[in-house]
């Protein structure tokens, strides 16, 4: 096609112009061929379609969308790490409780091996009110400590004692508890401080 021979179809951009497609073709070709005439240069440099408000709205919308996507993805990651962190903390806390129980059991057995008796034995312990901003429950059975929260984080810590354990479930809302040895029942019980 020889565009040089074509007569310009418009003198100025017009909304009413029906030759819009033709204009675009010319503009495209002109950019690649160089050598614009005055009308073409004016059209190319015309920035009437550029709106600061529209640009701001577009950029702001895109930014909000991107920001939301990032926050959502980070929140998902954060929830995963939160659950893992809670399970780790539960295991540490459960181990601490199991150590206390077995310590009391050892003391009772040592006293018995001496032929003696345990008149009173109390061992205080405290649990955090929340772990990663979540409450939780501690269920102590005859052979394991089970700690779990509503978001699904759960940990088991097994232990073995010759003394009986009176099963109990305690909650993090009350933080201060104690293990009590009941010599009559030869059992370790859980009570409030």
């Amino acid at each position, binding site marked *: 096609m020889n565009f040089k021979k074509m007569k310009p179809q418009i003198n100025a951009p017009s909304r009413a112009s029906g030759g819009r497609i033709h204009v675009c073709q010319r503009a495209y070709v002109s950019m690649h061929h160089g050598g614009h005439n005055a009308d073409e240069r004016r059209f190319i440099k015309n920035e009437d379609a550029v709106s600061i408000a529209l640009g701001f709205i577009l950029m702001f919308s895109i930014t909000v969308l991107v920001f939301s996507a990032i926050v959502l993805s980070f929140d998902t990651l954060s929830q995963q790490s939160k659950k893992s962190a809670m399970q780790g903390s539960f295991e*540490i806390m459960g181990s601490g409780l199991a150590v206390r129980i077995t310590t009391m059991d050892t003391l009772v057995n040592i006293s018995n091996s*001496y*032929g003696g008796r345990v008149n009173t034995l109390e061992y205080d312990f405290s649990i955090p009110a929340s772990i990663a901003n979540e409450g939780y429950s501690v269920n102590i059975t005859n052979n394991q400590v089970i700690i779990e929260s509503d978001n699904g984080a759960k940990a088991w810590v097994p232990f073995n004692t010759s003394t009986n354990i009176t099963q109990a479930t305690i909650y993090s809302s009350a933080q201060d508890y104690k293990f009590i040895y009941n010599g009559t029942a030869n059992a370790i019980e859980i009570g409030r401080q």
Partner: protein
Amino acid sequence: MEIIENEKAQFMLLAGFIIAIGLVITTALLNNIIFQGNMAGEAGSDPLKYDVVNMMQITADEMKSAYRNANGTSDSLKIANFSRQMQNFNGNLSKIYALRGGGINVVNDTSNWNNYRYANFTNNGMANGAANWTVIESVNNATIVVNISTITPPFNISITNSTKTWQINFTSPGNSIVSNSQIKANITSAYNISFVNGANVAGNYSITGNTTYGRTFIRARDYILNATVTFSTSKVRANLTIPVSVPW
């Protein structure tokens, strides 16, 4: 006019704004992860059982020592001297544990001694202790002194080596001495000395001699004295009663 109409800085501001938001998000996320990763649960435990076991052992040792050291022309004087040493021990022990943040008190019960309630010939001196038990092994020579206050036969002292057993039967209260020459007449060394049916008898005994390793030994029991130990720390409160065989 050109500088006023130039709008390229919008992109710089926008880029700065996005970077700032990104930094805030990253910081919050990292903080959250680091906080949760380092959040410590209630781990560990104070070495309670070692403290209490040590305390029981040193209390028992001190009571034995105090009994052996208790001199006097009468039992009441001996008991007074015994109690004085135990009070001294209790005071020093309290100071030592106070420095470590704990409280301790030892109360000794000398009623068995005062009322001549002798111990059973069981392993731990209690009526429910092991009735058949070996007092000492690998003996080269020994002298056995037994003073029986109450007895419900059978009860015997069994002296055994790898090939032979000699049993000395006791059927009535009273003092008995089994000399080394008597033992040698029946059993050659090395032998073990055991009590059989020790729960059927109460009294005191003393067995002295040498082992095949060349070491002298004393196995003796007069009474079982009870020591009540009260132990308390910031987290633990314990009250234990332990029977202590004296003098050894």
